[in-house]
């Protein structure tokens, strides 16, 4: 036997309705500030019997009740719960919060957990109301209206009405529930009393189409009844027009799935041969690679390159760009994120730095040929970013096949190796780039190779003064290149 039933409480608080949060808040404030403990209050709902002003103590002058900022919002949500003891529970929580202001941050406390569980139940019920309300249309033209009957677990109609206003602004609609109703006439929202199922229309022609959709979108080969019921518990089924199909769909699923598997593959449909002939004529083989007489033909041939495995993760081959009669070829390391997407070399952040410095040095980028030692982007994915990885010697070697052909077609006077990978590709051996920077190495075939750093090196320097100094050095290198181009 609970002592509460003897009603020994000193105070009886009568709330105006199940959702009278303002009334609760006012009473709770007065009582807490007068040091009335939870055991001395009896909470109830008495519709229409307003609290008499003298029933509750007044707030002592100058007294203030301080509660954590999020408590009111959270209490308001939990207030919609159908548990009749919620008024007393929330008061007890308030009572504790005066002394334990951090209580709500302690997720392991039983009262905090209960508050969370109540909020969660209300939020879930609200979410299910958004999902499972089914309108039925009545009337046509100016008389067109949409009416729904719904049975929520908690007192959530008031709280959810605005969702339906936002969504169905251009419609006139009414949602009826046992506790309350909401009505939107296209301009104004009105909350009214509860209703009965019989007050809502009992059918709508469009439901036949909806049921057809439900039946056909279901895949009998993957029956997962538990997963369905977890999210759409049976208690909602009686108001869902599609739910009466569920038992027969489940019963027939196994047979339907077995039939699908048992049916032997059939002959191709009659129209298939015609479709194939019209849309997919046998294609001519790709042009022979060694036939390429221009860089555009070479670029075309490189699209399908499989000489190393880097094509697998990249978007596309990023081939060199520039005129076939260029006097100089700049060779970088490999395309980066932006180059990989666009299919063009040196257009990302490092390419922009490179362009600006070439411009400062008086070199016209339109007149030079720019390419990379490796023509696919090598990277490690990290979430939504791609972290550049250095190509290995094997990949550089594989891609020399293309570099050699680019050089053979263009026959430049000078090559510029931007960084170690480019130098490795052009010279066939690793060299210390920072030490040999600014030098010209003549290859056995007579090609002069100018050594410098990769412009991305400048981007990686954080100290502004150092960055500026490095930029100046690179500009100096490019001026040297310009001078060499003239010889």
């Amino acid at each position, binding site marked *: 036997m609970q002592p509460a039933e003897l009603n020994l409480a000193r105070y009886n608080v009568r709330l105006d309705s199940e959702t009278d949060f303002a009334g609760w808040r006012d009473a709770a404030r007065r009582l807490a500030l007068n040091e009335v403990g939870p055991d001395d209050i009896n909470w109830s709902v008495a519709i229409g019997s307003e609290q008499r002003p003298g029933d509750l103590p007044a707030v002592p002058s100058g007294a203030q009740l301080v509660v954590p900022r999020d408590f009111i919002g959270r209490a308001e949500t939990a207030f919609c719960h159908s548990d009749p003891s919620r008024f007393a529970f929330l008061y007890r929580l308030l009572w504790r919060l005066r002394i334990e202001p951090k209580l709500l941050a302690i997720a392991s406390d039983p009262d905090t957990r209960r508050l969370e569980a109540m909020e969660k139940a209300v939020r879930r019920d609200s979410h299910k109301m958004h999902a499972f309300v089914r309108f039925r249309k009545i009337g046509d033209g100016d008389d067109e209206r949409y009416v729904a009957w719904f049975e929520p677990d908690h007192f959530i109609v008031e709280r959810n009405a605005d969702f339906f206003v936002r969504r169905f602004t251009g419609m006139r609609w009414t949602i009826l529930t046992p506790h309350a109703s909401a009505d939107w006439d296209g301009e104004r929202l009105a909350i009214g009393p509860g209703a009965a199922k019989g007050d809502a229309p009992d059918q709508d022609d469009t439901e036949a189409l909806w049921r057809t959709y439900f039946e056909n979108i*279901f895949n009998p080969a993957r029956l997962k009844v538990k997963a369905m019921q977890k999210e759409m518990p049976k208690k909602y089924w009686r108001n869902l027009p599609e739910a009466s199909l569920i038992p027969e769909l489940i019963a027939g699923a196994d047979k339907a799935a077995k039939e699908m598997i048992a049916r032997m593959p059939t002959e191709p449909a009659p129209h298939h041969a015609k479709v194939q002939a019209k849309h997919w004529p046998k294609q001519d083989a790709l042009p022979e690679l060694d036939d390429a007489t221009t860089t555009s033909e070479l670029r075309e041939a490189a699209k399908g390159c499989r000489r190393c495995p880097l094509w697998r993760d990249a978007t596309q081959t990023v081939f060199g760009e520039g005129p076939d009669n260029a006097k100089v070829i700049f060779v970088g390391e490999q395309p980066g994120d932006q180059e990989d997407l666009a299919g063009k070399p040196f257009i990302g952040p490092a390419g922009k730095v490179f362009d600006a410095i070439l411009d400062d040095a008086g070199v016209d980028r339109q007149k030079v040929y720019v390419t990379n030692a490796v023509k696919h982007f090598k990277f490690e994915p990290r979430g939504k970013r791609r972290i550049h990885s250095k190509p290995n010697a094997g990949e550089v070697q594989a891609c020399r096949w293309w570099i050699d052909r680019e050089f053979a077609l263009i026959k430049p006077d000078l090559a510029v190796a931007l960084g170690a990978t480019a130098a490795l590709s052009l010279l066939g051996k690793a060299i210390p780039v920072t030490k040999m920077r600014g030098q010209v190495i003549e290859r056995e075939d007579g090609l002069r190779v100018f050594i410098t750093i990769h412009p991305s090196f400048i981007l990686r320097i954080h100290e502004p003064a150092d960055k500026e100094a490095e930029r100046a050095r690179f500009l100096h290198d490019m001026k040297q290149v310009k001078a060499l181009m003239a010889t």
Partner: protein
Amino acid sequence: MSVPTIRDKLAILSDAAKYDASCASSGSTKKDSKKTGGIGSIEGMGICHSYAPDGRCISLLKILLTNFCIYDCSYCINRSSSNVRRARFSVDEVVKLTMDFYRRNYIEGLFLSSGVIRSPDETMGEMVEVARRLRLEEKFSGYIHLKTIPESSAELVEKAGLYADRLSINVELPTDEGVKRLAPEKKPETIRLSMAKLRQKMEEKAEPTLRTKKRERFAPGGQSTQMIVGADKTSDDGILHTSARLYGSYHLRRVYYSAFSPIPDSSSALPLQKPPLMREHRLYQADWLMRFYGFSQPEILAGSSDGMLDLAIDPKLAWALRNRGQFPVDINRADREALLRVPGLGTKVVAKILTTRRHKRLRLEDVGRICQSIAKLRPFIIAEGWTPGTLTDKAGLRETIVRSCEQLSLF
């Protein structure tokens, strides 16, 4: 033959669409109809309006414009050699069906896909027209997801992005070899390029324009894709590798995994056995580890013998059992990254632990109250008054955990 009714067409064209797993109506920008006086809203979180007995949610009206198709992809029920019944909706019919369903609160919006008829541009053009009519003529603000045909023109894609919340292009299979074998007319190279172009377009439109200083609308819900699991022999490690590549390269919002499902009038190029549905579930869990738990793709299956996810236990537990040297983790001291790697601790629970421990030291019982069950995590954590001792390194730990989790599910 009689003229098919709307109901006949709906039956055929929804049956044809069910193999696309995506039904998400989330991830787009919030909007409602209060200003336009029209119909429809997007609330941030997606809403599942119903569930089919296959456990999949029904959020969008997921249909094909037509299931006539010039492609012959052997895993697809609509391939040109299939004897399936064919139908075709008109633009009017799709618009009316969408609005009729939406007004009755059956759906969050439309997911429109199509077989390719005549040419990619012609088909894409009609799909874009449906979206345009919904937005401009019906003042519809609900969710629109358009399947993009990789070969369609840039202008059509631009328009599609203007009206749709999400665009998607399916990679279909985890490897290019798989695509070439099972979908001989599809070009994996073109699919990659189309995804790259979508990412570029989204980034371009995310910048305010110079003139109006406003951002132009372009598929605010981003792009997604789907991979069929079990139609070829790619291992889970290979599948996850492809996913990581797609997330990194094209900034996809989601990669959907669809366990290969036997289809009527199946092609002989396909396996006769379907993969266990659990495999699909484990792949989603592993995908979550990459996106929300700080795991890099290679470490998820590093040290496993066959590159396959354990079907009996979740991928994080399997990883922890292979990497016991990193445990136990002190629940009262470890940083967020380390806590996220503890089996049984989800992102929300970790957040709660971090706030709670600022005010009190947590005991094992406290952790038990915050999360659902401690069966999985006991061997991996240190709490006030609790150390797992030799439990962490015990032989047979996997079996012990599996058994205690099973017993829990009996009650």
